[in-house]
């Protein structure tokens, strides 16, 4: 099993000073597997998924998992643009996350003191109270997040910009860009920007070469352009396997097909059909890929399927499905886990600022159940008496009539 710390997730950005990258991160992930798109394919209804994910969905129920529109695997088309974005984002991600985390540690809760950029930095959400808003922003829809993307990128630039602090000297490259109104002046020899009083000291030892400070940041750029020019996604020439009309094939003919394909042909007819479907999905998604795997690798994946879902899968023990499942015993056996879960679930309900907390709750309610039935008068009266803080488990089971005055204010 993968360790949880190795799993990357859009929420990785939330505790950093760059929480607005969470929706960007999320928009580059497949909604089915929640990982970054692998061989992204676009459906007839213009939704994008990993090739294997969407092929599996379509072969199981013939509908787009996002909008339930009917579609067919043969209509899928590659989405190269997304693939390029994903690949470059994946390359940049660890570095950006690392910088963001380091910045967060340095910041240590105090306002960042970067001359001339302080205001912008605060806009990023450096203040703690912005964290909640940022988290909400992270849940915005993708179209909304497009706006966020733009601002997140500009913020990103601001942060890279501020790396060098007072001694920071953008090199000659800076000449290509509009010069920032940061109160710095360029060195007449090498063009690096610095405080006015630092120029004279600098000129004495200036060798005409831009300072090395930017080398780290600069090294990223060539890599990105290289990956774009050296390795544009290329269609491979592997032909797709056709779907079979199983009802037209007798067992013998079906098994013959399996021999031709080089996949195992044992098992019941039902199993053969499931195995063939899986193989077609694996094979065709590999054919979609710009970096296809070997046939041997695909057979290994089919074998993994065989052992987890196919003919060699262990007998299922969906314990709670059993008729004689003893919920009470289960509850007792897992008491400490449930106690912990209750603490966690309650924790999230207590929002530090009362006003904000209420705002969030209504927003969530509206989101979850737009057609909430109106409560009866009796219900309303009762629920208003219930408006008490959630901080502790109630010690008394009956709390009717508690704190009406306090809570309704």
């Amino acid at each position, binding site marked *: 099993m993968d360790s949880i710390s190795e799993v990357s*997730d859009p929420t990785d950005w939330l505790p950093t000073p760059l929480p607005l990258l969470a929706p960007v991160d999320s928009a580059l992930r497949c909604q089915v597997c929640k*990982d970054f798109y692998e061989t992204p394919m676009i459906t007839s209804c213009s939704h994008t998924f990993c090739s294997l994910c969407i092929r599996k969905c379509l072969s199981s129920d013939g509908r787009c998992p996002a909008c339930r529109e009917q579609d067919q695997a043969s209509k899928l088309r590659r989405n190269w643009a997304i693939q390029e974005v994903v690949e470059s984002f994946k390359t940049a991600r660890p570095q950006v996350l690392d910088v963001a985390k380091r910045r967060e540690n340095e910041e240590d809760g105090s306002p960042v003191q970067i001359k001339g950029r302080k205001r912008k930095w605060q806009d990023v959400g450096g203040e703690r109270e912005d964290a909640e808003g940022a988290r909400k922003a992270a849940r915005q829809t993708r179209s909304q997040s497009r706006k966020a993307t733009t601002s997140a990128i500009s913020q990103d630039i601001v942060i890279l910009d501020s790396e060098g602090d007072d001694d920071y000297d953008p090199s000659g490259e800076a000449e290509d860009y509009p010069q920032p109104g940061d109160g710095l002046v360029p060195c007449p020899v090498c063009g690096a920007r610095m405080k006015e009083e630092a120029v004279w000291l600098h000129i004495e030892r200036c060798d005409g070469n831009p300072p090395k400070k930017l080398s780290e940041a600069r090294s990223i750029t060539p890599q990105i352009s290289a990956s774009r020019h050296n390795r544009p996604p290329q269609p491979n020439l592997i032909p797709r396997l056709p779907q079979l009309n199983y009802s037209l094939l007798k067992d013998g003919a079906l098994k013959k097909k399996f021999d031709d394909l080089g996949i195992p042909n044992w098992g019941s007819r039902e199993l053969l059909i499931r195995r063939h479907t899986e193989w077609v999905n694996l094979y065709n998604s590999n054919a979609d890929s710009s970096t296809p795997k070997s046939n041997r690798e695909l057979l290994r994946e089919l074998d993994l399927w065989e052992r987890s879902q196919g003919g060699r899968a262990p007998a*299922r023990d969906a314990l709670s499905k059993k008729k004689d499942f003893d919920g009470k015993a289960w*509850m007792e056996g897992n008491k400490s886990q*449930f106690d912990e879960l209750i603490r966690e679930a309650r924790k999230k309900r207590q929002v530090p600022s009362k006003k904000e907390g209420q705002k969030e709750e209504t927003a969530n309610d509206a989101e979850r159940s737009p057609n909430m039935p109106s409560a009866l008068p009796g219900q309303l009266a009762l*629920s208003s008496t219930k408006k008490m803080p959630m901080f502790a488990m109630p010690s008394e089971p009956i709390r009717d009539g508690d704190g009406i005055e306090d809570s309704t204010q």
Partner: protein
Amino acid sequence: MSTTARRRLMRDFKRMQSDPPAGVSASPVADNVMTWNAVIIGPADTPFEDGTFRLVMNFDEGYPNKAPQVRFISQMFHPNVYNTGELCLDILQNRWSPTYDVAAILTSVQSLLNDPNTQSPANAEASTLYKENKREYHKRVRETVEKSWED
């Protein structure tokens, strides 16, 4: 064995840890990522308010193409929950989508609490009371809420 289902469940777990929806929590049992325990706190301003309802979720290797099997193990009184704790919820049956994750399932169940569907009752008595005698319905629900604190 790192299968699609197990990798996805690790992601679901990470999400539940780092940004859980309000009033729900869930984690896999110690030795098996395919079985999860979950808690839903009854939503405020509903008869279920403050209840600590416990659930078990069972996933199989078909997840997320197949819905998990979800059931309450706390005693419930709700039109769409059977006596066995099993749920009658469309998104766990014919309206399932592979885009749902643990967080989405739990928020759906949470909103089902105060928004029952009386078209397909799983508990006829709860459904009738909900439609015809709200006061009694409310009382019965509060009993389960109080019971949930003692579990």
